[in-house]
């Protein structure tokens, strides 16, 4: 019945109110019973049905819940409570868009309800509908203009729509409520002082954003006594003074900041700008160096100041500064010295200079046990760290044999220094001996079993070597013993690096089901990261930490640009495309089964290679209840692979449209889905980034071929598309583009891949020809390990003969003589 609650008899009204209270205290079972009491007498009371549905939802009876709520709404379509409840349940299921719609309906019937308005505000923020956010928060403030987090929320909403001026106005109008001597929020409020400070700094920031620098500076002086975030205040002072071109005062402000943190590059560069200097301008070099030396005297321990001169000095100055830092670091035994110096190697001269410098130290130490400024014999470790540096230097230039020789010498001198093994392993990895790398890393790990860092590295190297089981055995050594299920714990703690590496390992093992499972786990973690912000839409405003909150929103907007996500998404797309292609070719991929006859691994047991028993974790006697699909068969057996891939494509196109890989991946999906205009869009987007990208011409040829072959596609549209392609790309031909870029392996590889996709005996033969020659001299330095491995894999997939593959392998081994992968 469409009776409103107030039209029910008193007893039922009381029960209804009681039910709502029970919801607030999370007593869902009792609440459900209470609703049933009402329904006994009034079995089709709309609002009660809706509230009952809400309880059902929280008791994990989802289907029933939605049915019951929908029935309730059908009966009382204008009931605010019913829609509100529906909104709550959608929100609970993280279906924010649907929730917002429900709340909007609820608002129609009860437009001044502050709870509905507030919760709708949260939803609008999550959905980034900032204009609507302003509207609802304005309404709340009209109802109640004294509660600080209401008007503060409105100010934030204005800022999010780009109206810093309106945000300021709201704060200026209402701030007295909090700031006055007589403020009701002062008494018994331990966070009052902090809240006031945050509000004042937020307001000052808005002034700055609004361009009112002088006003902001004056305001800054005024509010200092009430500001507790001293660092932010001082940073703001320095920033504003610089913006107002008050260089001397700004310099003194930055000096104050440097005093507090002499390792801040921001402060140091800020100080330099006050002197009108720019570290990247060669003409400023001498002046900058002088200032830095002055600062170094004041702050001799600062690491940032030690390194900075090397970034802008050249010639003799560079040698002098590098010599100073190098000697200091070698004597101190700083393992990351080369990693720091590496950033300088983009300057060829600097790289060579550093090499000579350290070679010099090395020979001097060998001959005299001293360096040119030593007052006594240097300790042996100095020479070890010197060899350590030179090994990494050699590795950087691809001289792997020399690098390994140096590492051997260093290890002989200091066999218990774990850092040496880690870098030796890295060098072996670069050289293409992944098995050797993994062994060395594991050897280093045995030297310090208490250290998770080297455990993590070892696990990664095991996965790179496709040893999924060994990796699992190793990583669980550091998973909490009381975790109910070790593997689930790894997923729960969002160990995204492990999920991603594992996914790639399974991919290489051609276990597409498990690979997809892992890439989806990475994706799921990122979706969780994105959803995590929800509670902060109210929390941060109540805490007044607006500056941090805006920072969180901005990060969340970019969260899917993270390299681990992007890499996993691209890999997932490639898996789905592969599944689709195999199915289309008549040999669909079959999920690799779980071998339940074997006993689960224990920590002391060993796993046979090739057995991928993911369901039970190491040392556990039964599989996790949560792991309903241990071999990813759900992903494999789905009948809409391309649609699944498309979801990832859309996120990538939205987040990382500036990366070429996005459009290369997107094209594969759009083309197979016959969305030719979208495929063209991918081509154009790629071209806008890099008009000589190796994949461009193969993409054009493929779309043309596909269009020609597609009789169902309307002729005029076909002509339009092909016309556009011809206009931009002319008479595109894979052979031609390879010839035009004959020194670059990426073009040969992309061309080969394109030819393989086009199919047919001639194309395949051409592709094979290209791939067998992939390690030819003419490709010079573009023959990276990664590209040669790719060539190897393509040759295997395209059915090359044993002799073709070994011809290639032999030539690849000439380039990477230590590699074990050819």
């Amino acid at each position, binding site marked *: 019945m469409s009776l409103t609650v107030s039209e029910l008899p008193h007893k039922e009204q009381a029960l209804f109110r009681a039910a709502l209270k029970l919801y607030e205290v999370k007593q869902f079972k009792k609440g459900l019973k209470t609703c049933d009491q009402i329904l006994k007498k009034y079995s089709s009371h709309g609002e009660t049905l809706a509230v009952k549905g809400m309880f059902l939802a929280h008791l994990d009876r989802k289907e029933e819940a939605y049915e019951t709520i929908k029935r309730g709404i059908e009966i009382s379509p204008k009931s605010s409570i019913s829609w509100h409840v529906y909104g709550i349940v959608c929100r609970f299921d993280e279906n924010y868009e649907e929730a917002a719609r429900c709340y909007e309906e609820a608002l129609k019937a009860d437009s001044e309800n502050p709870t509905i308005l507030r919760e709708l505000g949260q939803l609008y923020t999550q959905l980034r509908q900032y204009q609507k956010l302003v509207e609802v928060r304005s309404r709340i403030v009209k109802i109640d203009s004294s509660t600080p987090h209401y008007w503060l929320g409105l100010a934030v909403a204005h800022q999010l729509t780009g109206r810093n001026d309106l945000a300021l106005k709201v704060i200026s109008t209402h701030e007295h409520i909090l700031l006055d001597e007589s403020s009701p929020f002062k008494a018994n409020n331990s966070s009052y002082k902090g809240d006031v400070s945050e509000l004042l700094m937020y307001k000052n920031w808005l002034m700055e954003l609004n361009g009112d620098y002088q006003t902001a500076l004056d305001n800054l002086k005024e509010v200092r006594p009430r500001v507790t975030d001293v660092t932010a205040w001082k940073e703001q002072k320095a920033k504003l*003074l610089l913006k107002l071109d008050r260089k001397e005062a700004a310099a003194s402000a930055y000096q104050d900041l440097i005093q507090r943190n002499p390792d801040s590059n*921001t402060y140091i560069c800020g100080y330099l700008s006050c002197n009108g200097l720019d570290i990247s301008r060669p003409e400023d070099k001498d002046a900058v160096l002088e200032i830095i030396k002055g600062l170094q005297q004041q702050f001799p321990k600062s690491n940032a100041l030690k390194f900075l001169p090397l970034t802008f000095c050249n010639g003799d100055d560079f040698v002098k500064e590098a010599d100073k830092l190098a000697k200091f670091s070698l004597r101190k035994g*700083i393992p990351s010295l080369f990693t720091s110096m590496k*950033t300088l190697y983009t300057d060829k001269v600097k790289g060579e200079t550093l090499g000579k410098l350290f070679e010099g130290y090395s020979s001097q130490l060998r001959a005299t046990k001293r360096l040119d400024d030593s007052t006594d014999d240097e300790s042996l470790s100095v020479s070890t760290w010197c060899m350590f540096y030179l090994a990494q230097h050699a590795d950087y230039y691809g001289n792997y044999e020399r690098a390994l020789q140096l590492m051997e010498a260093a290890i002989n001198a200091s066999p218990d220094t774990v850092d040496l093994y880690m870098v030796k392993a890295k060098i072996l990895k670069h050289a293409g001996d992944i098995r050797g790398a993994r062994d060395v890393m594991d050897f280093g790990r045995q030297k310090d079993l208490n250290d998770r860092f080297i455990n993590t590295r070892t696990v990664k190297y095991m996965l790179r070597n496709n040893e999924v089981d060994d990796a699992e055995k190793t990583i669980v050594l550091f998973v909490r013993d009381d975790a109910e299920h070790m593997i689930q714990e790894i997923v729960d703690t969002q160990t*995204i690096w492990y999920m991603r590496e594992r996914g790639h390992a399974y991919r290489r093992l051609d276990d597409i089901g498990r690979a997809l499972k892992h890439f989806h786990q990475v994706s799921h973690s990122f979706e969780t990261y994105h959803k995590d912000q929800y509670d902060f839409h109210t929390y941060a405003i109540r*805490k007044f*930490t607006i500056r941090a909150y805006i920072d969180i929103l901005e990060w969340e907007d970019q969260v899917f640009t993270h390299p681990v996500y992007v890499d996993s998404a691209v890999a997932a797309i490639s898996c789905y495309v592969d599944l689709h292609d195999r199915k289309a070719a008549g040999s669909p991929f079959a999920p690799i089964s779980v071998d339940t006859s074997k006993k689960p691994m224990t920590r002391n047991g060993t796993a046979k290679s090739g057995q991928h028993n993911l369901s039970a974790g190491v040392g556990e006697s039964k599989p996790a209840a949560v792991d309903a699909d241990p071999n990813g068969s759900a992903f494999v057996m789905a009948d809409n692979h391309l649609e699944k891939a498309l979801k990832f494509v859309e996120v990538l196109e939205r987040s990382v449209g500036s990366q070429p890989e996005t459009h290369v991946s997107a094209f594969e999906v759009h083309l197979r889905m016959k969305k030719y205009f979208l495929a063209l869009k991918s081509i154009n987007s790629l071209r806008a980034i890099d008009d000589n990208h190796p994949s461009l011409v193969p993409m054009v040829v493929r779309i043309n071929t596909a269009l020609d072959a597609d009789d169902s596609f309307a002729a005029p549209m076909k002509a339009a598309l092909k016309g556009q392609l011809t206009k931009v790309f002319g008479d595109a031909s894979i052979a031609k583009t390879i010839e035009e870029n004959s020194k670059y392996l990426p073009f040969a590889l992309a061309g080969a891949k394109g030819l393989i996709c086009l199919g047919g005996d001639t194309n395949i033969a051409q592709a094979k020809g290209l791939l067998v020659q992939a390690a030819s001299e003419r490709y010079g330095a573009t023959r990276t390990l990664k590209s040669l491995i790719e060539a190897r894999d393509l040759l295997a997939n395209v059915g090359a003969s044993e002799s073709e593959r070994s011809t290639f392998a032999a030539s690849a081994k000439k380039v990477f003589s230590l590699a074990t992968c050819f």
Partner: protein
Amino acid sequence: MITIRQARASDEIAMQNCNLTNLPENYHMKYYLYHLATWPELSFVAENEQGRVVGYVLAKMNEDMTEPLDGHITSLSVMRSYRRLGIAERLMNQAQRAMFEVFDAKCVSLHVRISNIAAFSLYRNTLSFDIDHTEPKYYADGEDAYSMKKDLTALYSLEQENLDF
């Protein structure tokens, strides 16, 4: 070399990764966000020349309202390959001072495994923490922890700001 600065939201994934790489005590992303949204001034990161986060300190104020306001170090970790640069010390110094200035903290506390000699030595010798008491079976694997404390009131004083600018 390494720059030390306040942690921002965009550092959170890197901090989580650093934590997962180095320590067995791990947290959900939401817990990192909770720190940032509640005590944004207290957490710091160390960034290398390539922009990678190689160390962090995740800090908070004690939420137990019955005790005087103490700062607390939730987690501190520096990648092994970045030792000997005093990064941990620098991170802790920044966090401590912020606790004092922003929240009037009188002291700062933390937990450390009794077997972790390196960490214990850092806190005891380099950073002048004292053992306050031992907490039996504090860690999930049953190991005991030293609860260590450091008095901040002697270290810092509220400075007189020069407002003549």
